[in-house]
């Protein structure tokens, strides 16, 4: 479904990503792992056409999604193709109310509706008329997840989507993602909760200084359970 | 060994970088110093008075850039301070207290008081609100000056003599006045340059980007901003005193909002927050207006698009472009 080949990118001329390849199949969950500053978010930005917005550029490689070439496409086109992003650092729309955040960019044609999202995050419903800027950190995170779901994406991309969430909620999210996966949803996820990722994901990519240093599927990881700790320097 | 070497080279690099940073300004000052000589050959008092006006606006623009470029305080009422200084000079000269030794302290006091009062109120706001509230205070002063019938109202006030300096009639000569203005300009440039690099400047710059953080570090953002506001106001006030002497005329148009707008334009055109920005902006703007308007009365048809193109293609302003040139020269040398 999503195929990234030899993707390279730079910020203000300084290379940050080198020939990163990665793929996510239909109904699969893939992860990107690596320490802080290793290029996980950059990979996602490059794939999503978001590099120009942060003073960077994609310098090479290819991005294909559902057979269509999206290399260098404007980010709205990538998103419209069916990719829903929960960005790093939440980035909710501060002046919009919770509900407006959810419906402003919503797209029909899937299982997610306002009601669904509210059932998933009852806290959001309680605060639905409040400006998003005034939400607590965790509430904003829920909102960012809900907002991405409301676009009813074929591929859900989560960049540290559980940051700042209470343990109970976090556990619930992992459970829900597993459920979504069973329902055929494809997911690309970046998170520091390696334990949760292990049980959820089908394939893993580990980045170090912008390079892929390890890749493998769930079986490979089972065969060599220390690999993650090794690369993540634990 | 290697460390020492590195230190030496990087140290050397720093010196040349420092020189590079002020090179464009030094060049401008050198050219300005030749102004009266050039005037002998060409244009006479026309050229010197044009250059004097240019330098005075540059002083005001430099002081404004301390607010905009370093402090993030976009004052749309900065001309009020020029006007305040000019009116203090104009009124005192008219009333017979023409000595700079009296006028200057008076102008400084007046600017300080006005800056403290309006600054303390304005600094409760920020961003565009700050722009507009400073405009409001500027307008209040403007209308006050316009209704000063005793001093010409909006027709303005012709000064029948210039200030004396400790009783000596030095300024009636354009050349003396010229160099006094030049020295003041260099002083203003050096002062703001020093401020920016100082502890004070660092707090000011940080507060521009993230006041909440700076406050949480233990700095009273308000006090730092107000201090900067007063310093800038006084600098502009001094420029105003000299401007009244140079033009031998004071009028409310000195403190109209259009004038404040022009100062902002100078700062932005030159490159906000850049060492040489305001200076180059003022010089370029005055020179360009003068040149274009002497070519055609419809000069704004050229000037307008020129401004637009500058914004679109010289993103860092004129000083940014100049810095890039200097850097290239330095590398080649």
């Amino acid at each position, binding site marked *: 479904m999503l195929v990234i080949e030899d993707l390279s990118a730079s910020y203000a001329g300084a290379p940050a990503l080198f020939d990163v390849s990665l793929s996510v199949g239909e109904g699969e969950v893939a992860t990107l792992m690596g320490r802080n500053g290793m290029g996980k978010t950059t990979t996602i930005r490059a794939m999503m056409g*978001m590099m120009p917005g942060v003073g960077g550029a994609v310098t090479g490689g290819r991005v294909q999604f559902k057979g269509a070439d999206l290399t260098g496409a404007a980010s709205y086109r990538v998103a419209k193709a069916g990719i829903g992003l929960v960005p790093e650092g939440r980035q909710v729309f501060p002046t919009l109310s919770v509900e407006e955040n959810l419906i402003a960019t919503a797209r029909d044609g899937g299982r997610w509706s306002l009601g669904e999202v509210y059932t998933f995050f009852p806290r959001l419903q309680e605060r639905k008329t409040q400006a998003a*800027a005034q939400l607590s950190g965790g509430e904003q995170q829920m909102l960012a997840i809900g907002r991405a779901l409301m676009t009813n994406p074929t591929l859900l991309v989560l960049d540290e989507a559980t940051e700042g969430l209470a343990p109970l909620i976090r556990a619930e999210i992992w459970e829900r993602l597993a459920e979504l996966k069973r329902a055929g949803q494809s997911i690309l996820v970046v998170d520091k909760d390696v334990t949760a990722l292990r049980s959820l994901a089908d394939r893993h990519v580990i980045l170090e200084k912008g390079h892929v240093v390890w890749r493998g599927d769930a079986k490979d990881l089972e065969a060599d359970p220390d690999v993650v700790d090794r690369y993540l320097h634990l | 060994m290697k460390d020492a070497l590195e230190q030496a080279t990087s140290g050397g690099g720093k010196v040349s970088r420092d020189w590079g940073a002020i090179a464009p300004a030094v060049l401008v000052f050198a050219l300005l110093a030749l102004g009266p000589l050039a005037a002998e050959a060409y244009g006479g008092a026309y050229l010197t008075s044009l250059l004097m006006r240019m330098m005075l606006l540059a002083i005001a623009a430099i002081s404004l850039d301390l607010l905009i470029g370093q402090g993030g305080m976009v004052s749309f009422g900065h001309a009020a301070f020029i006007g305040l200084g000019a009116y203090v000079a104009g009124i005192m000269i008219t009333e017979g207290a023409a000595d700079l030794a009296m006028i200057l302290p008076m102008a400084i006091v007046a600017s300080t008081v006005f800056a403290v009062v309006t600054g303390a109120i304005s600094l409760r706001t920020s961003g565009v609100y700050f722009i507009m*509230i400073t405009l409001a205070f500027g307008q209040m002063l403007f209308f006050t000056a316009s209704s000063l019938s005793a001093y010409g109202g909006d027709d303005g006030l012709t000064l029948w003599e210039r200030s004396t300096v400790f009783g000596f009639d030095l300024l009636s000569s354009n050349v003396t006045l010229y160099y006094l203005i030049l020295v003041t300009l260099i002083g203003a440039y050096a002062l703001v340059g020093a401020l920016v690099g100082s502890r004070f400047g660092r707090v000011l710059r940080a507060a521009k980007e993230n006041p909440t953080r700076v406050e949480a570090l233990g700095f009273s953002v308000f006090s730092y901003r107000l201090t900067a506001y007063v310093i800038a106001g006084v600098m502009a006030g001094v420029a105003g005193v000299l401007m009244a002497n140079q033009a031998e005329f004071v009028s409310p148009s000195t403190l109209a909002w259009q004038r404040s707008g022009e100062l902002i334009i100078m700062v*932005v055109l030159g490159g906000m927050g850049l060492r040489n920005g305001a200076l180059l902006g003022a010089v370029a703007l005055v020179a360009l207006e003068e040149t274009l308007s002497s070519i055609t009365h419809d000069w704004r048809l050229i000037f*307008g698009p020129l401004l637009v193109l500058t914004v679109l293609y010289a993103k860092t302003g004129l000083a940014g472009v100049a810095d890039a040139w200097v850097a290239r020269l330095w590398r080649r040398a």
Partner: protein
Amino acid sequence: MSTTLLLIQLLNGLQLGVLLFLIAAGLTLVFGVMGFINLAHGVQYMVGAYLAVAFYGVTEHFLAAMVLALLAALAIGLALEFLVFRRLYHRDHLDQVLATFGVILFLNQAAKTIFGPTPLILPTPEWLDGSFLLVEGLLYPWYRIAVIVAGLAVAALLYVLVRHTKVGMLVRAGAANPQMVSALGVDIERLFMIVFGFGAMLAGFAGVLAAPIFSVEPGMGDDLLIVAFVVIIIGGIGSIKGAFIAALLVGLVDTLGRTLATDAMKLFFDVSSANQIGPALASMLIYILMAAVLFFRPTGLFPAKGMA
């Protein structure tokens, strides 16, 4: 002052307020909501007026001239957006100030070069040319009523558009974080272009409507631009409701100030001083109002929640 006169002046103040809102409407959208400092709003207003005069010269029909002028204003707005403004959305506010200032200089001069410096007029449409008797001895033109209705309509339209439509939400979202809006599948550049075009059209609309009351001359929008900003700032950036209330407030304060300031000063000063201070004070009043509002509410009367 008699009660009747006071009532009439209240009416005049509200009337001026609605007119000010009409003039500020396009700016409320582009600056207030979309967050782009468009100093060229004033000249876009002027362009609307000149276009109406020009098209009236051709069609001799007010409505036809108005429609043509609106289309042309839209076209000019879109052209400006395409050539200049779209490159400035993500730039510093002051870069926008400088560039739009360049546009002001150019368009003002162009208007003068093309149409000459003398004021021009647009006649009131015949079907609105009458007046009705407001009080004994004072007629009130129907045309002004039409302008008030138009102003109220624009206010309602903008309010609904910005507050209650998806487009409004997206524009507000895009003002804060265009990249994110785009990353969620919305072509924000096209959206901004449309909004900007609409803003230009609103400015032009105000110009057309004001032309028969005011005179059409180069730079006619320059002073009004400042007042428009005052209105938006008092109301709170981003709030349509705020801008509307602020416009009424400014209209009232300005009108009553001009009527009463001098008389009020006569209570404290002799007549000639009062004649001196009163009008100066009246000119300052809207600025005093703005400073006072910002003193007590540093982000205006109705600040949009969550504004950084």
